[in-house]
């Protein structure tokens, strides 16, 4: 029987430890190239785990998934167009507030997300105590604690990746409420969008949010219809 393949994307803020996690996962089995058409480095690696062949893609470090910079467009296009089986958001635990902003954006896109709470040692040394179970419940995705520089948490992350890919762990996700006025407009937009071919590829609510944000990429895709 052929090995089952899992495509895994690593996302996260700059300096959250994505590349360290990437190296822990793939060791020397990696390939560095460029994303097509741009001189942004594309790193891919692979590993075998529990009968699965896991292809790991290290996305550029970004603060959000707006279409603001080339890095962000690359990260977003990969997630939207390549449909990875699992996305791991590497989060700097010592800087949760800023890092969770990207996590929320990934959740709104409806991707099968795992949060890797990295740099737990730094967070602890700063006196932060993070209730991992409460965080898991609050945002509806699995959360794994890690100290990537000491290769701690890698096994647990791999197990969680396989469980999410198999569908054994359900990623329920999060539906943020934006208040009555915005929600009314979102509902109107969603109703129009759901009859539209773009909604086959993207969650209608996410498209509605992006339209309200006047996201240039998404507005362009609508104009091209």
């Amino acid at each position, binding site marked *: 029987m052929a090995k089952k393949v899992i495509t895994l994307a690593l996302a996260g803020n700059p300096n959250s430890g994505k590349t360290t996690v990437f190296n822990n996962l793939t060791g020397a089995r990696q390939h560095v190239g460029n994303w097509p058409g741009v001189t942004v480095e594309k790193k891919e690696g692979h590993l075998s785990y529990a009968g699965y062949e896991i292809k790991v893609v290290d996305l550029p470090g970004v603060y959000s998934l707006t279409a*603001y910079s080339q890095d962000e467009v690359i990260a977003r296009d990969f997630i939207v167009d390549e449909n990875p089986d699992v996305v791991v958001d590497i989060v700097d635990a010592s800087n949760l507030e800023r890092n969770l902003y990207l996590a929320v954006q990934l959740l709104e896109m409806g991707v099968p997300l795992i949060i890797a709470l990295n740099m737990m040692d730094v967070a602890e040394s700063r006196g932060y105590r993070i209730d991992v179970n409460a965080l898991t419940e609050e945002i509806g995705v699995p959360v794994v604690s890690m100290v990537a520089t000491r290769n701690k948490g890698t096994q647990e992350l791999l197990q969680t990746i396989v469980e999410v890919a198999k569908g054994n762990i359900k990623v329920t996700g999060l539906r943020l409420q934006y208040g009555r006025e915005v929600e009314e407009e979102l509902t109107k937009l969603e109703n129009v969008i759901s009859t539209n071919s773009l909604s086959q590829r993207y969650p209608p609510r996410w498209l509605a949010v992006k339209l309200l944000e006047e996201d240039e990429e998404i507005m362009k895709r609508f104009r091209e219809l």
Partner: protein
Amino acid sequence: MMPLSMVTQGEVVQVVAVRAGWGLQRRLAEMGLNPGVKVRVMNSQRPGPVVIDVRGSRLALGQGVAHKIMVTQA
């Protein structure tokens, strides 16, 4: 209250408001620079960018952007 571009190097200040369009406000918030946060000015020599420490990361802001960020003494 004064613009971030006027703060002396080494001082710690608190962000009060970002007087800019929503595009820049959002962009700065994404990088952790939102009203209420404390920042330390690491470099404010002219000409050149204003370098600040915000939530443990360094950001380099153009003078124009720094001028739109209103701060008070922390």
